[in-house]
């Protein structure tokens, strides 16, 4: 018996040698009469099996199979029918005319209530429903949602959740049914029904709050449903900055006393990951977790310790009381639990306990998976930054780990950690570099070797005995693959620039590299040899700490490659903003830290977040989350690429930051973003309709230019408008108003703006819009074009030099009395807002109460014209700020414009 069973389980005995052609042949049995249910069931199983193995059916094949299967409806064998449904679900994606089964399915859905395959029928119906048949199937699904049998009801609710991506409005009408289903006696049905109800309301904060309040009072019996409710509650509290939803916190606290472990854990986890949770609020949650880590159930211990581990990153003191219990977990036979325990202790423990803990970790590093090793590495990195005096111990541990077996992710985490330590603890540098040198001697990951060589090149020349690194680097040139050799050549060049004594020797090494078999290596060597002979070139290309804003560079290159018409001219690098390497790195680090934070607190319910992802987010929101203004701009640029008329305007030069043109609580929210293109000025009005009972169609914005004393303003000619076809509730859409800048003028101007649209009322129950709508105007606030809209901030490594190079031929000096500003600090921020330029020499930082200040700014005017500004300011409490602003560029008009920017 036992051996027979294993035969069936084994793939290669029963189904292993299946091939599609044979199965298609066998499927002819479906057309036989009478039908042999057992035989057909087996064939269906084979079909499903093949599909699951990744076999694909061509549309015709799938459709033919589909029709043969439909004939099986004449047999009422229950298990055959269930298998028929499974097969239909699988084939529904590739076959045509699948809707053809609708009548048969709905018939089964309505059949005798004790039939086991009713849920199967519902799930299959959901699969074959498309937008056009959704309305006609609505009745069947609604009716099944409130079916007395929990499995039927659950199947219908799940189907509704799937269907909502097809038509949210139709599904929203099933709220009453969903509410009724929550009272189902089926525990899982309750859970599903709550999920559906949330899906309908998730964009309406007040409705979600009401839902939480309604169900938090104990009417839910299903712990799964309560877990979902906790996640919704968490999300509301988390996303509310006003603090008004804090009252919901009480519910979370009450759930900590629930009788189900699942609920208690989820509540504790929710509290621990609230963003501004207080120690007092944390206390009961941590106590609950503390009880769990001494539980006899490994899953509970694991869950609890993992949450404490996360919490310890942000609130080590709150976790401190658990230290004693966590110590006991170090010897837990489950190594994952032990890892979390130790790494948590590393965060909460004091300096004295570190040595002992590190020893304990080392003892079982080899027993845990890479994933957990990375957790350990991250903990060690954090610890080292916290207790810099322990860096030797930590670096020894990390380099030991480098020598151990492990995959790329793990090794990369270690290298990353060492880089971080080098960056934050300068004293550690030499020791860390020597470990890295040792590692690249025997490193199986070229990618890591390249990164390490880069760091060696950047840091090595400034170490106390730099020459010792040269040997390690040159060894790479001899032994490695071409990308590593190329990186080694670049690193050598760094040493040659900074170490005058060693330069000639290094040149000899580089000279040998010009015989390399790889052309990249040869090219680099040749280039560096040439550069090294000229001090000026060397400073410009090697000792330069500026770099291009990478997102903008990528975008411009992408645009260039997509417009073959532009190939006759070389790519214009002048339009790419320049930043300091430090700034670029800081931006990346900020983005990475934010990503880590999100991962640490990321707790959005799976269903909720999946559904939320389906709703298009607004572009400006996405851009706001970007790492730097340049990343934000590339997000706008990508959105505009999709509008053909705008994509034709050429590469985007500059996007301003978004300006709100309405109150955040009005019926329509409008945000304006200004974009400068080579010959055009584009206003993007991002609009959002906050009324769930109306639909706006044919949305446009009428802009009127105000009379201006800027003569160039006449050169702004309205060219075209890209309307938003419709503005449904809560789904943002953009209107673009495009002006041509005749002759490339760059005027300042002011506009009044009116939103125009056709508004249609929507039936509050069905969401269906009325046939007839009426036109409406909606006045929003004015927009202004300022000089800064035309200027990209640019980093220059040496302001004085750039200033001198521009010379005073076209210098314009203006003096201003800024009577309205009350401090130097606000004067600086006003000027920077208006000019949109890069502050240099740290001159944007102003001491509190400073009375004099000098501000250095650099930028690139549209068309690639470098501009520099030197502003001297003096503050007098009675007269405000007096400012003398000198502007230099190679263009008199540009200098004048920038100098006049302040009004």
């Amino acid at each position: 018996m036992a051996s027979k069973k294993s035969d069936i389980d084994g793939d290669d005995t029963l189904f292993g040698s299946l091939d599609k052609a044979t199965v298609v042949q066998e499927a002819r049995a479906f057309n036989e009469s009478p039908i042999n249910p057992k035989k057909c069931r087996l064939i269906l199983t084979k079909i499903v099996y093949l599909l699951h193995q990744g076999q694909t059916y061509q549309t015709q094949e799938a459709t033919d199979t589909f029709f043969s299967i439909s004939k099986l409806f004449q047999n009422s064998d229950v298990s055959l029918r269930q298998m028929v449904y499974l097969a239909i679900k699988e084939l529904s994606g590739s076959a045509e005319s699948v809707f053809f089964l609708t009548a048969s399915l709905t018939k089964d859905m309505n059949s005798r209530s004790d039939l086991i395959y009713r849920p199967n029928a519902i799930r299959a119906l959901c699969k074959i429903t498309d937008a056009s048949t959704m309305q006609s199937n609505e009745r069947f699904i609604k009716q099944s949602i409130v079916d007395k049998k929990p499995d039927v009801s659950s199947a219908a609710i799940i189907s509704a959740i799937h269907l909502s991506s097809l038509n949210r409005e139709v599904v929203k009408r099933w709220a009453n049914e969903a509410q009724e289903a929550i009272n189902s006696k089926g525990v899982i049905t309750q859970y599903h029904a709550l999920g559906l109800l949330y899906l309908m309301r998730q964009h309406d904060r007040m409705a979600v709050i009401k839902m939480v309040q309604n169900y938090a009072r104990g009417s839910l019996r299903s712990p799964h449903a309560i877990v979902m409710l906790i996640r919704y509650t968490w999300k509301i509290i988390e996303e509310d900055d006003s603090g008004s939803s804090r009252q919901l916190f009480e519910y979370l606290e009450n759930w900590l006393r629930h009788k189900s472990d699942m609920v208690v854990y989820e509540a504790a986890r929710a509290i621990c990951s609230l963003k501004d949770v207080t120690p007092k609020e944390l206390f009961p949650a941590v106590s609950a977790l503390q009880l769990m880590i001494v539980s006899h159930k490994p899953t509970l211990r694991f869950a609890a310790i993992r949450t404490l581990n996360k919490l310890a990153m942000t609130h080590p003191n709150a976790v401190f009381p658990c230290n004693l219990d966590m110590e006991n977990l170090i010897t837990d036979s489950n190594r994952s639990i032990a890892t979390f325990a130790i790494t948590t202790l590393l965060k909460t423990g004091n300096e004295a306990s570190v040595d002992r803990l590190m020893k304990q970790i080392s003892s079982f590093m080899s027993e845990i998976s890479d994933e957990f090793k990375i957790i350990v590495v991250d903990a060690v990195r954090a610890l080292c930054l916290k207790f810099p005096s322990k860096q030797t111990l930590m670096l020894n541990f990390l380099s030991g780990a480098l020598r151990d077996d492990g995959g790329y992710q793990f090794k990369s985490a270690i290298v990353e950690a060492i880089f971080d330590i080098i960056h934050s603890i300068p004293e550690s540098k030499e020791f860390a570099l020597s470990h890295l040198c040792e590692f690249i001697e025997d490193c199986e990951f070229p990618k890591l070797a390249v990164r390490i060589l880069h760091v060696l090149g950047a840091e090595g020349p400034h170490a106390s005995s730099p020459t010792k690194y040269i040997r390690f680097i040159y060894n790479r040139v001899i032994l490695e693959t071409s990308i590593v050799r190329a990186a080694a050549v670049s690193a050598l060049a760094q040493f040659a620039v900074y170490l005058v004594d060693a330069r000639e020797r290094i040149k000899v090494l580089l000279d040998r590299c010009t015989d390399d078999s790889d052309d990249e290596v040869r090219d680099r060597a040749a280039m560096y040899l040439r550069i090294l002979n000229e001090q000026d070139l060397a400073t410009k290309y090697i000792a330069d700490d500026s770099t291009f804003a990478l997102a903008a560079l990528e975008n411009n290159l992408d645009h260039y490659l997509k417009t073959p018409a532009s190939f006759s001219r070389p790519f214009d690098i002048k339009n790419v903003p320049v930043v300091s390497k430090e700034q670029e790195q800081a931006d990346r680090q900020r983005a990475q830290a934010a990503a880590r934070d999100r991962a640490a607190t990321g707790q959005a319910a799976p269903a909720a977040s999946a559904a939320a992802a389906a709703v298009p987010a607004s572009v400006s929101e996405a851009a706001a989350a970007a790492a730097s203004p340049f990343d934000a701009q590339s997000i706008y640029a990508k959105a505009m690429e999709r509008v053909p008329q705008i994509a034709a305007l050429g590469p985007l030069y500059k996007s301003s930051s978004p300006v709100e043109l309405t109150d955040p609580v009005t019926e329509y929210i409008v945000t304006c973003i200004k974009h400068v293109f080579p010959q055009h000025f584009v206003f993007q009005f991002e609009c959002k309709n906050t009324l769930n009972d109306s639909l706006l169609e044919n949305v446009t914005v009428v802009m009127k230019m105000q009379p201006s004393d800027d003569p160039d303003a006449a050169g702004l000619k309205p060219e075209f408008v890209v309307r938003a076809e419709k503005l449904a509730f809560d789904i943002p859409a953009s209107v673009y108003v495009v002006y041509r800048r005749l002759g490339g003028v760059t005027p300042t101007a002011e506009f009044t703006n009116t939103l125009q649209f056709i508004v249609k009322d929507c039936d509050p129950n069905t969401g269906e819009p009325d046939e007839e709508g009426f036109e409406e105007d909606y006045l929003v606030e004015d927009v202004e074009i300022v000089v800064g809209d035309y200027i990209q901030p640019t980093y220059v490594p040496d302001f004085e030099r750039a200033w001198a190079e521009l010379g005073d031929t076209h210098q314009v000096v203006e003096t201003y009395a800024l009577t309205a500003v009350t401090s130097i600090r606000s004067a600086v921020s006003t000027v920077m807002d208006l000019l949109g330029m890069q502050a240099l020499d740290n001159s944007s930082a102003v001491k509190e109460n400073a009375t004099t200040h000098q501000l250095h700014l650099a930028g690139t005017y549209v068309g690639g014209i470098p501009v520099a500004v030197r502003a001297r300011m003096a503050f007098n409490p009675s007269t405000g700020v007096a400012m003398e602003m000198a502007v230099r560029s190679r263009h008199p008009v540009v200098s004048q414009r920038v100098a006049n920017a302040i009004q």
Partner: protein
Amino acid sequence: MMRGMWSSLLAALGLLRRRANLLCVGLDNSGKSTAHEEVVPTVGFSVEMFERGKVSFTIFDMSGQGKYRDLWRHYFSEADGIIFVIDSADRDRIVVAREELALMLENKVLAKRPIPVLFLANKMDLENGLSPVECSEALGLDRIRDRAWNISACNALTGEGLEAGLEWIIDMLRQAPPQ
């Protein structure tokens, strides 16, 4: 194979319960589904089963809406007989019915299978309806030479006339056992 022949022999002698697949077609709203208490237009098809005498019938009730008519042909190969329902009161669309019938009879699969066709001139209760003879003229039934056919008037709401039609089919099947 042997077994199959054996059972059909027995069946021919009327000793064994027989089964028969009928395919029920016709324009939408002609009344195909009414006979078994369906009230909404059929989307696709639905399968009905019942017994009459010693025969257990499986009826594939097809949808008659324009976009689905193309799908009837998938069921020709297993049918032992076809029921073609006509709304006798729908004078405007009798030509459409004629076209669909012609298309169906031209089908390669069906052309090779001389299975009987029963025409039901439904809704005979309605005043301005066509008589079976008028129907048969309008559809050009006299040109069907390759198979047995018959037409009878009926009222699907009451079941009147259906019995006679079925009797005819059973008779036909007895003469030519299902293939």
